């Protein structure tokens, strides 16, 4: 016996297979991806323990870890949350706004990095004297 339509606005019931195989297959994929991430994490740990940590290699490993995480996110959303079997327009209303994250991440990390560089360059440099400019500013302010 299968469930009836949950509300009148639904036109057709999506096909539900009786098998739990895709669910378990996804579980093994997620577990494998997680173990992969952990192995790479331990590589990074070992590199940092060593004498001369190769920054590029660490960065490459971190990049791989990010890609594995995105793969995990894909499987959780598409299979566990069923988004992969929904109507294409619904998939798009969820996915397209998430592309904002690409700009979001790049812009803010760039900003943070720029902060660091500015601080490193200008910390300890004497502040500019402002006594000469203040009377002019006060006069200007009174006029406004």
């Amino acid at each position, binding site marked *: *016996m*299968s*469930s*009836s339509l*949950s*509300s009148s*606005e*639904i*036109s*057709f019931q999506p096909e*539900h297979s*009786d098998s*739990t195989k895709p*669910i*378990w297959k996804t*579980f093994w994929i*997620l*577990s494998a991806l*997680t173990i992969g*991430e*952990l192995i*790479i*994490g*331990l590589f*990074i*740990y070992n590199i*940092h323990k060593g004498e001369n940590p190769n920054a590029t290699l660490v960065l490459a490993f*971190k990049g791989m*870890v*990010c890609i594995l*995480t995105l793969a*995990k*996110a894909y499987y*959780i*959303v598409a*299979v*566990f*949350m069923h*988004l992969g*079997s*929904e*109507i*294409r*327009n*619904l998939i798009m209303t*969820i996915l397209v*706004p*998430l592309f904002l*994250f690409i700009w*979001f*991440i790049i812009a*803010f*990390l760039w*900003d*943070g*990095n720029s*902060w*660091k560089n500015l*601080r*490193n360059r200008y910390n300890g440099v004497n502040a500019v004297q402002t006594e000469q400019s203040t009377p002019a500013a006060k006069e200007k302010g009174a006029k406004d």
Partner: protein
Amino acid sequence: MSTAAVQQENKWWSGGKSPFNASYGKVMMWYFLMSDAFTFGAFLISYGTIRFSQNHWVDPNHVFNSFPFAGHANLPLAFVSLMTFILIASSVTMVLAVHEGHKMNKAGVEKFMLWTILGGICFLGCQAWEWTHLLTAQHEVLVDGKIELWNTTVAHNPFGPEVMFNGKVVATPGPIAFGSYFFEITGFHGFHVFSGIIINIVMYIKAKMNHFEQRGHYEMIEKAGLYWHFVDLVWVFVFLCFYLI
């Protein structure tokens, strides 16, 4: 009849039916999860911004290297892997509960909801242990020429750059932002896990009381499942940002 053919035949926006072939409640749950995704994303990206703005940051493999009952053993990534697997497993039992709901199998739904609730409680227990461990640990820190013993709080942590002091390597105070970001983001996530557990308990009780049998469908279990999977998804990214990279 394949769904693709049905999609083409229907005029989805002609009115009188859902253009997404999904109930209002399900679509709204998706949109709520999108908003929550941006909230968590904003927290994590701001964490990244502060981290990128610092010359020195903590090494997660030095901070998170303990395991319950293992004393002072150095086990980086071990405990957090356990937490990740617990949450993934509870996600699987949640999907299985939804699957049983499609077959109108009340007993199956109850069984898998119980496993999911158990998984959530275990995860929260692990997180509580992690927090307690950080808050009660005692690390040597060099402060103003003296060695003090510090724990990790939102106000201070002992994971700054190491220096030589009296012939010994000792840590200095670490970036203050680390503690606040860690406790705040894992706390906000933990709060979501907690509310998810409450929702799952309510779902279990409703299933047991035949609410869904009477209604003719278990769609509410599906919506609760979306929330629970979202909680797992956020954890995947928290795990990435705090422990891996």
